């Protein structure tokens, strides 16, 4: 069958658009297919944040932040990029220990950071209640992902966009909902949670998130504010675990997150979760009491069992590449994901295994399969895949950049 493009990308969210742009930059002719279904790119906060829960995640997000910063001068103003930095907040001595551990991991990766004591934290963000201290990561930022995704698709004449719903993916070909098959040299599956229905062996589950946004006010907050005890937040009867995470939008609005719920595949805004989010937000920013909320919404993160994305060649389907399972970090890690896909695809064309010294797309371990997905970006020399800082027996509760739909 005749190829319609060298590469078909399924999904025009931030991951699909970034993959298309990276492949086009390598000279590939790309066709991007998107059904216009609600996705995480449109729902999320657009927080660009170096995450260090896991060494692979740290490598991926730090590399990605560097790539984002290279792109910044070219971004359109509607992308709303701001280098706001992240302030990780500690309420007590135990959380100061978490700050210290985080600082050490970031230092080891060469990510700039600055611990702030109680007074310095209050000076940096006067709207915060009295805290024990914080860690400032000045390189972090924010942007508005839907505009960036649309802009990435328009950057190259080698990218063609088609509004179409893909109903099946088989290696190098995809079937559209009108029954037609499209064939290419390769297919990149970047359809977020939809990928789970197109490729049922992918171990992706939805994690529901709520986001709220206030009306416009004079500047109250400068950094993205996240509590360091993010993963430790208690589960409530709603089944939602909630953590303080607030982002100042360039409009003067505040985005208030974040929540996490398993096995809630619906899109309904749950009043009980909204209440939980607001109580948490008031714990840190008591002045919010009299501000008005104008909208709340939800989104579904596509999460893998261990919280790490699946990036690379599908082990059983030649020609199919995966860029899925980014959970809440899709916007942050899109450029590095796209770089990995583009390099991997280019290397496959040279009939050699792409295996640069600092990272590789690995093959599944025998017997491991998808229960422990491993065909992904990972750091060599980390065979255990269990980061040392994670306490034994603790349920994995990755600290994900939060989420929601605008």
């Amino acid at each position: 069958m005749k190829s319609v493009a060298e590469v078909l990308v399924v999904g025009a969210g931030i991951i699909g658009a970034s993959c298309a742009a990276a492949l086009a930059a390598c000279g590939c002719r790309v066709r991007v297919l998107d059904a216009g279904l609600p996705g995480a790119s449109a729902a999320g906060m657009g927080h660009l944040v170096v995450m260090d829960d896991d060494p692979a995640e740290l490598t991926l997000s730090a590399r990605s932040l560097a790539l984002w910063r290279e792109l910044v001068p070219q971004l359109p103003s509607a992308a709303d990029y701001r280098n706001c930095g992240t302030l990780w907040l500690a309420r007590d001595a135990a959380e100061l220990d978490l700050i210290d551990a985080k600082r050490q991991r970031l230092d080891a990766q060469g990510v700039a950071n600055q611990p702030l004591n109680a007074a310095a934290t209050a000076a940096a963000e006067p709207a915060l209640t009295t805290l024990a201290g914080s860690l400032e990561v000045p390189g972090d930022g924010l942007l508005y992902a839907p505009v960036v995704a649309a802009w990435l698709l328009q950057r190259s004449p080698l990218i063609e966009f088609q509004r179409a719903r893909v109903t099946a993916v088989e290696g190098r070909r995809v079937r559209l909902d009108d029954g037609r098959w499209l064939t290419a040299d390769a297919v990149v599956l970047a359809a977020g949670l939809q990928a789970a229905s197109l490729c049922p062996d992918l171990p992706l589950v939805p994690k529901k998130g709520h986001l709220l946004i206030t009306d416009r006010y004079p500047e109250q907050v400068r950094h993205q504010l996240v509590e360091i005890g993010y993963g430790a937040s208690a589960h409530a009867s709603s089944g939602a675990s909630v953590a303080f995470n607030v982002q100042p939008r360039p409009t003067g609005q505040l985005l208030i997150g974040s929540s996490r719920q398993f096995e809630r595949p619906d899109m309904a805004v749950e009043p009980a979760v909204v209440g939980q989010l607001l109580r948490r937000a008031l714990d840190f920013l008591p002045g919010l009491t009299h501000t008005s909320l104008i909208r709340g919404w939800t989104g579904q993160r596509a999460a893998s069992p261990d919280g790490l994305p699946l990036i690379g060649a599908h082990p059983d389907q030649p020609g199919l590449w995966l860029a899925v399972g980014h959970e809440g970090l899709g916007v942050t890690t899109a450029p590095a994901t796209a770089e990995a896909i583009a390099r991997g695809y280019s290397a496959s064309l040279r009939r050699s295994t792409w295996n640069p010294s600092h990272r590789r797309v690995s093959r599944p371990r025998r017997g491991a399969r998808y229960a422990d997905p491993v065909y992904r970006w990972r750091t060599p020399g980390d065979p255990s895949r269990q980061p040392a800082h994670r306490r034994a027996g603790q349920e994995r509760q990755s600290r994900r950049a939060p989420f929601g739909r605008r």
Partner: protein
Amino acid sequence: MPADVTLLTQTRVAAVLGSHQLLLEDAHGSRTLSFDTLILCTGARELLLPFPGWTLPGVTGAGGLQALIKGGVEVAAERLVVAGTGPLLLASAATARQAGARVALVAEQAARRALVEFGLQLWRWPNKLRQALTLATPRYSPGTWVEAALGSERLEAVRLRQGDRRWEVACDRLACGYGLVPNVELAQSLGCATLDGAVAVDDHQRTSQPHILAAGECTGIGGNELAQATGRIAGLVASDQLDAIAGVQTEARAWRRFAAQLARTFALNPAIARLAQPDTLVCRCEDVALGALVGHADWTQAKLRSRCGMGACQGRICGQATRMLLGWTPPAPRFPLQPTRIDSLLALTEDER
């Protein structure tokens, strides 16, 4: 007010908490309200359509100006142009005149022929005929619409259009409204079906949700008399007095014929939907111009890429405008229904710590 009726004034429905529960907010705080049966009487709002200059200070809706005057805004000695469509224009002009404004012109977009035909039918509704005669003004100009509001800092004049003729009229205020749009957001949030932009009801005023009824202009624009009749029906049905509804239903049917006649008479000239230019703002909350909207596939895509409808009104104004200008389906309502204070929303969950 009967003793067994509690009236909560200056109270808004902030959110739907469940099929039988609402969150209410007033100036002092919030409370939840549970119900077995609910009658929605959410009324209608004015349809505002963008045209060059419509965001200048001094430009309001036609019903908007009436509300402002009743709220105490001073218009004495101001030169006023009333424009748009529908009977509301005459009522608005009359209110303004009573408040001391000088009405330079009432520009009705509907064609003279349609208005004459409508006038000839009015004997069927004598009180409407009397109303029309009371409100009639020599300044009434059919087949006429405002093409642009002119001015630098605020409104100074309007450019009018009638057939091929264009002219300018100096004025201090323009009150321009294109009729009414049913308020269906609360009904939609409760899962009630809509039909042609209004809450869908049967001849008992029942919505698609068995325990929810709706009456008045949220079920379709029809004026005061139809609203009262449907309200009585809903009240009788909700209190199991079905024997008493037949007479009211007959009355309601008569007023529905009047409403249909109104809708035919004041149907919008398609030229009105072409007045906005690429640099004309469509979304006033987020300052999004028409040029940033055309070319998008639908409301959702346009909203995500341009922020249209993301502001405080949540697309209530621009959603209707894009329906008329671009044929898009207005957005489904989101939580909360209106901007709501954060302290009011804390009631949504108990403190579990």
